[in-house]
């Protein structure tokens, strides 16, 4: 598609705030988003692991599913156990196609009234809404909450910061949600995130987002963090980026996301591609997503071919770069199952030269979720 015909980029409610903070804005999934602020990706990354980073993730899709048992309805499209999800609890799950390929990854929160708040990726939200409306039938409505913003406050200081604004939320357990009034704004707060650190995601009316973001940034521990560090943080955390590490051609089992398939779902199936996925669970997949550590200093980027000792290609890097907290390059990719064991030597073809590497455990940086 020619740039002349590209639709204009959308802006989040925090666009002006990003500009005033000196952000470098880039196009991302149809939005003008901050890739970094003046501190830079390295400093923003390290600050998030040391204190707290504030991320604007308002480009992501927030959907509300309501009607007759939305959890049971959504279970027909995902392998996660949503019927077993208690009120104000959330779960990571995967929207699947009929071959067991992943259409999107999402967070589903069961609200107090039995409805579901579903957060999906920005690039896939239009397709997800169409798909869900098509597949869920008339008993469940799918509403886009386009008038809501989403902030993420991530890092070891996040809970202490939020405690100053609302006492209750700091006690939430990982993957739990609460309604809270933050700085006078009614918010839905979940203890979740995409960095591997403790932290929160805060859904609130778009009009209130700049004020709350400014309030949070006034706390001494909090610095703004852009998409660049969001990517390096999630990569070190071993977390998948949709469209890169997972897509319609990868199954949950191949993606090493079998942990998202609940026991009841394994026994009874009833999700798209169940035959393929249950067979892979029983027999093992032909390929698997693994962590990869280059043995030298050169980062291996997405698309880097992975070869074995005889030079035969056995996989491909799907995310890769420099891990600021690791202090070395890190990557994830798919390899043939025979090469997936931790420690297996591999070679990465970077700029035409084979570079030594090995399969490494994920995450590269230990998760520090709040599990009281």
């Amino acid at each position, binding site marked *: 598609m020619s740039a002349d015909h590209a639709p204009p980029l959308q802006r989040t409610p925090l666009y002006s705030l990003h500009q005033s903070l000196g952000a470098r804005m880039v196009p991302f999934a149809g939005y003008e988003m901050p890739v*970094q602020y003046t501190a830079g990706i390295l400093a923003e990354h390290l600050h998030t692991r040391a204190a707290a980073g504030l991320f604007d993730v308002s480009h992501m899709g927030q959907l509300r599913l309501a009607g007759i048992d939305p959890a049971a309805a959504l279970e027909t499209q995902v392998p996660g156990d949503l019927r077993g999800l208690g009120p104000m609890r959330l779960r990571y799950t995967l929207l699947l196609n009929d071959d067991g390929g992943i259409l999107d990854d999402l967070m589903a929160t069961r609200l107090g009234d039995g409805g579901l708040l579903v957060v999906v990726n920005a690039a896939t939200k239009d397709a997800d809404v169409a798909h869900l409306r098509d597949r869920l039938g008339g008993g469940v409505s799918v509403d886009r909450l386009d008038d809501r913003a989403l902030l993420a406050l991530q890092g070891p200081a996040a809970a202490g910061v939020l405690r100053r604004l609302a006492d209750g939320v700091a006690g939430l357990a990982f993957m739990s949600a609460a309604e809270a009034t933050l700085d006078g704004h009614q918010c839905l707060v979940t203890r979740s995130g995409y960095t591997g650190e403790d932290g929160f995601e805060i859904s609130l009316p778009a009009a209130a987002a700049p004020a709350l973001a400014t309030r949070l940034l006034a706390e001494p521990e909090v610095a703004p963090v852009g998409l*660049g560090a969001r*990517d390096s943080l999630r990569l070190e955390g071993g977390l998948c980026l949709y469209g890169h590490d997972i897509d319609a051609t990868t199954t949950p089992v191949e993606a090493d996301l079998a942990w998202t398939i609940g026991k009841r779902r394994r026994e009874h199936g009833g999700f798209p591609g169940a035959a393929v996925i249950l067979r892979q669970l029983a027999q093992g997949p032909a390929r698997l997503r693994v962590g990869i550590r280059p043995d030298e200093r*050169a980062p291996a*980027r997405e698309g880097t071919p992975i070869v074995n000792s005889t030079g035969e290609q056995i996989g491909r890097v799907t995310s890769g770069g*420099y891990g600021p907290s690791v202090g070395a*390059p890190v990557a994830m990719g798919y390899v043939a199952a025979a090469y997936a064991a931790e420690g297996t030597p591999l070679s990465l073809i970077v*700029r035409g030269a084979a570079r030594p590497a090995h399969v490494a455990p994920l995450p590269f940086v230990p998760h520090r979720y709040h599990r009281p």
Partner: protein
Amino acid sequence: MTAPRFTKDHEWVRLDGDLVTVGISDYAQSQLGDVVYVELPEPGRRVERGKEAAVVESVKAASEVYAPVSGEVVEINSALAADPAKVNADAMGEGWFLKVRLADPSELDGLMDEAAYLRFVEEQP
């Protein structure tokens, strides 16, 4: 050493006798962001003007560095292996990349002086 001269690809050169020191401009390092890895050619290799001579990687991406002149690589800045952030801290000094023995001095003629380069950078979108 002579005053630096610049390419439109944001490399700089300084001439000292027949040796040309090559680096990337301060503007280039600021656009790249934090440099985490620099890949330099082996000394003794010949580089060709306008062709890839080195690679500089930030957290986000890898960028090619093109040889501003043709000639044999006689020295590389091996300090960048342990401390690639020197490129950010001092792009025009300690963050130099390589030294090339200049084969054809006329190759320097088309390069911009600092004032012209800064005007060129101003015009970048």
